[in-house]
C-alpha cells in the first residue's frame, strides 16, 4: 500500500541523482582509459514534462532515466573525460541530493506533527 509518504517526483529525483553519481564514479575511474567516452545521466527533462500530467505516482523510476554519451572533445588517447567537469558535476549533484532529501524530510516532519510525535 502506498501511503503517499514520499512524493513520486522526490523518489524519481533521488534515484536519478544517485544514478548520476554512479555515472560520475564510472567516468572518473576511466579517466585514463584509451578511447573511453564519458556518460551523462538525464532525467530532469522527462520528470519535468511528466509532472504536468496525471498518473506520475505509478510511473517506474526507470522510465525517466536515460544515459547519453558525452560530446566533450577528446584527448590524444581518444578519452573525453574532463576531471574538472566531473568534479563540479559531482559536487552539484550532491547538493541537489541534499536538497531533495530535505524536501522528503519536510513531508515526514509534517506527518509526524499530525501523528502527535515529537
Amino acid at each position, binding site marked *: 500500500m502506498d501511503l503517499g509518504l514520499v512524493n513520486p517526483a522526490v523518489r524519481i529525483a*533521488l534515484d536519478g541523482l*544517485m*544514478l548520476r*553519481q*554512479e*555515472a*560520475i*564514479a*564510472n567516468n*572518473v*575511474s*576511466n*579517466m*585514463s*582509459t*584509451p578511447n*573511453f567516452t564519458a*556518460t551523462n*545521466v538525464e532525467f530532469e527533462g522527462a520528470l519535468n514534462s511528466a509532472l504536468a500530467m496525471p498518473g506520475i505516482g505509478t510511473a517506474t523510476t*526507470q522510465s525517466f*532515466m*536515460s*544515459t547519453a554519451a558525452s560530446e566533450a572533445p577528446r584527448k590524444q588517447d581518444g578519452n573525453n573525460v574532463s*576531471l574538472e567537469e566531473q*568534479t563540479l558535476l*559531482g*559536487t552539484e549533484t*550532491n547538493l541537489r*541530493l*541534499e536538497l531533495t*532529501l530535505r524536501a*522528503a*524530510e519536510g513531508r*515526514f516532519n509534517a506527518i509526524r506533527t499530525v501523528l502527535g510525535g515529537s
Partner: protein
Amino acid sequence: MLSIFNISSTGVNFYKNSLDAIAHNVANVNTVRTMEEGAVRRQSVVGSSNTSPAPSMVGTGGTVGAGVSFTMVQSASGEGLVTYEPEHVLANEDGYVRRPDIDLTTEMADMIIAQRGYQANLAVVQRATEAYQAALRLGR
C-alpha cells in the same frame, strides 16, 4: 545500491597498479644487463572500461558502466639501449651492455597522473559517503 564504492574501487585499484608499474620502472632505471639476457622491460598498465552495467542500472535500458579493468603490459623487446661500456663486468667481448629504455621524466609525469587519478577516485568515494550519510539521516 552502494555500487559507487565498487566502481571507484576499480579506479583506485587501477591507479595503484599504475604506481606499482612506475615503481618497477624507476627502480630499474639503471639496471644493466648483458647483451644475451636483454634489457629490463618497461611495464605499464592499460585500462579498459567494464561494459557490464552497474547493478542499479539493470532494467533501466541504459548503462553507466562498472568501472575499469586493466592489463599489465611490458615493452615487447628487450633490446633496450645498447651502450658501449667495455669496463663493465657484464660487457660482452665487444664491450657492449644493455641498459633499459626507460625515461625517468616520462615515469615522473606518469606518476603524477597516477597519483592524481588515485586521489580523484577517492574524492568520489568521499562524496558518495556524504550522499549516503545524508540519506541515512532521513526520517530521524
